[in-house]
């Protein structure tokens, strides 16, 4: 190759280098923004999932505590529909007692008060306790996938079965999945 051809090659190379550097700078910014956005989005989604599970567990444990309190009340006080209704109302409305019972359990489990308050502030206590009240059949929530049924006839308690509570499998109900692989488009 003669000098002229090398000269052309050198010029083409120089142009290519400039173009490639410009492309690289542009892509660098794009990749950086994309990667940051993608990480933020996927980390956020997972943290939301984990927090959601903690809040769900908190609410369920609230229902669980209320349900045991109610079962104990039905066994130790008058077995009438009126007494049952009063107990449900009293238990559900006493939010301080519910929080105290829950917080005691979490403290016993070694969960610091700050973490408990965080979970409670984000999710709050359970919204529902009495799920069904039709024709003497009353259903109360005793946690995630846990329901107790009490049957009344002529104002008297006919059947109360708290087997669901005794057999409640928390490990099955509350299990956090490991994070999925990171995806970058």
């Amino acid at each position, binding site marked *: 190759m003669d000098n002229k051809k090398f000269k052309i090659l050198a010029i083409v190379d120089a142009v290519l*280098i400039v173009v490639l550097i410009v492309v690289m700078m542009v892509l660098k910014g794009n990749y950086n923004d994309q990667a940051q956005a993608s990480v933020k989005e996927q980390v956020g989604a997972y943290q939301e999932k984990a927090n959601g599970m903690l809040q769900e567990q908190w609410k369920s444990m609230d229902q669980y505590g209320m349900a045991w309190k109610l079962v104990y009340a039905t066994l130790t006080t008058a077995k009438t529909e009126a007494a049952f209704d009063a107990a449900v109302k009293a238990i559900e409305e006493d939010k301080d007692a519910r929080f105290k019972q829950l917080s005691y359990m979490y403290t016993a489990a070694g969960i610091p008060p700050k973490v408990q308050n965080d979970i409670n502030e984000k999710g709050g206590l359970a919204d529902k306790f009495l799920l069904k009240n039709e024709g003497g059949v009353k259903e109360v929530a005793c946690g995630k996938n846990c329901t107790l049924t009490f049957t009344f006839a002529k104002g008297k308690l006919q059947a109360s079965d708290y087997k669901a509570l005794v057999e409640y499998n928390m490990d099955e109900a509350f299990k956090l999945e490991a994070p999925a692989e990171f995806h970058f488009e």
Partner: protein
Amino acid sequence: MNIKNIAIVLSVLVVAIAAMLFMQKGNYVTQATEHYTKTTGNSFKGSSKIIEYVNSTAGTTKLLWALTCDAVQGAKTSQDMAKLEGKYFPATKGSNSISQKTRRFEPTAAYSIVTTFDKVDVDKKTDLKTLSGLKSIDVSTLLGNAVIAAAAEEEEGEDEGEE
């Protein structure tokens, strides 16, 4: 340096920059993956621990509530209570306080129940004292109406009674 050398050096540079361009994305993916794995990993570990510890404590309260509910439906004496305790917590035994006519069962430092009885029975042959006439069961800890005692290593102090 003549033009030939310059052209060769520039060509090598073009190839090198092109290679860097292709590797650039890979680097960002690696960095992002590392950050994602670390952050979500911490979140997974922390939350899983909370879930696990709470499940475990709730499991203990479940057994203690079940024991209490069984007791109020049929237990009359301290021996009845001992049987129920053995059914739900085979490794833990309750203890009677004859002077106070109570029986205390404490499966964990945070959770316990105290059963109050009406009277003290004395076996004439063995002089063994037991309690009968179950009156009530104190479930304060199950309701959260108690203060959790500081985790003291109490077990060590119990060696004296073993002989």
